[in-house]
């Protein structure tokens, strides 16, 4: 309380405070957001965030797109881990049409999603390093991310905005080249990752910069709707993969790392440990990858094999129906959430029986927790505020939808 009155009294003193415009485009914000900061020297008195610079009206567009055409929209939410968004959307529709997936499809999805999580966390943590002045780790971790993108390319043909998987399963089976890349990655990544880890984890400069920067308590974090690594860094062990398992996550054994102080260092450490846990899941999923079909039998939604379309009447009919959206959609409403790179990514879908959603609402973790930012940086140094922002992993695409 005293701190606040100190600031408000300074606030009224003319000429004592300066206004600093951080953003909308600034290299240190890693995206397009603006913060109007009121500064007392190098200390932040208040921050006023403005968002929406890359708002693309996904919720409106989704009301005029058939279900399979909404997947590319979800790519562009958190574009650091598009596959998780894609799968989350597929699972929402599968819940609506009550479609059960074969185990192999589930495991393939888990592999793709955990690779995406590793890529997402790698970028975030490497960037925290950059913002503390350690560029080297970033250059090495970016190469690892490229290797993950090479694998995505084998699974779906694209790298960043993946449009991976289909409603009802995966689009194709893992290719031989994917298996080669994956085995290679599993063999070499852990050692390189530990090398990166050793550069920062007990690095005096890094620790001095990050410990105590932008802390948040567990109660505050919950009140502000935090989820994902940011909430776990504050000490709450909430993980959607465990609380409401989807895509056979209950088959795997992994731990949920939690922090204590909810500061930048804890957020960094939680993400580091989650990468290791993701490797554990990957190993289990790959070793136990079941044989069988990689998609469910839902001809109303899943395109038939192309050669069949040319030779079989049934396949031709279904192909036409899927492409022309002649598919009956059940009436109802579902909420489905997945553990995305930044926390609980939710899809609330209301169907009135039309071919496109009547209403589709995205629960975007970034958007919800970024509103705590002004409170987290109040009273801290500007350089800490930059670190806090990069450790929260605010992704403009997910923030603005």
């Amino acid at each position, binding site marked *: 309380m005293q701190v606040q009155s100190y600031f408000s009294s300074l606030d009224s003193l003319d000429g004592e405070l300066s206004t600093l415009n951080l953003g909308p485009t600034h290299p240190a914000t890693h995206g397009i957001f603006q913060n109007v900061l009121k500064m007392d020297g190098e200390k932040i008195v208040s921050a006023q965030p403005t968002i*929406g610079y890359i708002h693309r009206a996904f919720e409106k567009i989704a009301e005029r797109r058939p279900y399979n055409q909404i997947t590319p929209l979800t790519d562009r939410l958190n574009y650091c881990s598009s596959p998780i968004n894609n799968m989350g959307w597929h699972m929402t529709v599968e819940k609506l049409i009550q479609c059960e997936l074969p185990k192999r499809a589930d495991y393939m999805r888990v592999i793709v999603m955990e690779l995406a999580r590793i890529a997402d966390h790698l970028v975030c943590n490497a960037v925290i390093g950059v913002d503390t002045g350690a560029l080297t780790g970033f250059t090495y971790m970016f190469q690892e991310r490229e290797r993950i993108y090479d694998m995505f390319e084998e699974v779906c043909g694209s790298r960043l905005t993946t449009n991976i998987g289909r409603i009802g399963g995966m689009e194709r089976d893992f290719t031989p080249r994917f298996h080669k890349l994956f085995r290679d990655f599993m063999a070499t990544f852990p050692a390189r990752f530990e090398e990166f880890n050793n550069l920062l984890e007990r690095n005096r400069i890094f620790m001095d910069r990050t410990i105590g920067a932008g802390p948040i308590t567990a109660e505050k974090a919950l009140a502000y709707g935090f989820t994902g690594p940011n909430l776990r860094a504050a000490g709450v062990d909430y993980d959607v993969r465990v609380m409401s398992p989807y895509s056979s996550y209950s088959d795997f054994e992994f731990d949920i790392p939690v922090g204590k102080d909810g500061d930048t260092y804890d957020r960094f450490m939680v993400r580091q440990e989650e990468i290791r846990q993701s490797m554990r899941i990957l190993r289990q999923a790959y070793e136990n990858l079941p044989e069988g079909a990689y998609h469910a039998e839902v001809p109303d939604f899943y395109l038939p094999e192309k050669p069949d379309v040319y030779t079989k009447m049934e396949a031709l009919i279904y192909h036409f129906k899927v492409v022309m959206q002649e598919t009956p959609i059940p009436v109802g409403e579902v909420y489905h959430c997945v553990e995305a790179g930044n926390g609980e990514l939710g899809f609330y879908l209301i169907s009135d029986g039309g071919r496109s959603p009547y209403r589709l609402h995205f629960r975007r973790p970034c958007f919800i927790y970024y509103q705590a930012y002004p409170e987290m940086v109040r009273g801290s140094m500007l350089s800490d505020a930059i670190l806090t922002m990069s450790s929260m992993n605010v992704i403009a695409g997910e923030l603005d939808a």
Partner: protein
Amino acid sequence: MNLNNDIVLAAIERRFPGAIASHSTPYGMLTLETTREHIQDMLHFVKEDPELQVGFLTTLNAVHYPNDVGRELCIVYHLHSMVHNFRFRIKVFFPIADPVIPSATSIWPTANWMERQEYDFFGVQFAGHPDLRRILNVDDLDVFPLRKEYRMEDGTRTDKDDRFFGRDGHEGREFD
């Protein structure tokens, strides 16, 4: 003790007799409907009640039903009791001519931006909100773009009307 749909429904009904206008469980998730008069107390109750402990507001969003006269707008709250791992939703309907609903910001600070977003897109006035401004759209926009009267496409196009999205007045019928 684990919560289930019946326990939660009974607990809320006991505390607010007659306040639940209807309830259903689409796809297994308990969905209650209440009114603007009760919503704030109800949210406060489920959060503070030692039995329910619904401490987490997952998300809230508006829906526009233009043909439902007097109940055109709807706010849906998705609530989550992390202690019991139980989710449910509460809906409140109100007329578009009087789009006012009490704000949940005093209960959960996270409702702040969620409500600003729904104000931005649907024009819902959240009474008691500390800073109800547009958030994703430009400040001087004079429409609420997610309302159904604003079409996605150019209005003169005939190849993109409702019929092509299965909305010819027969939606929801059983196909065979």
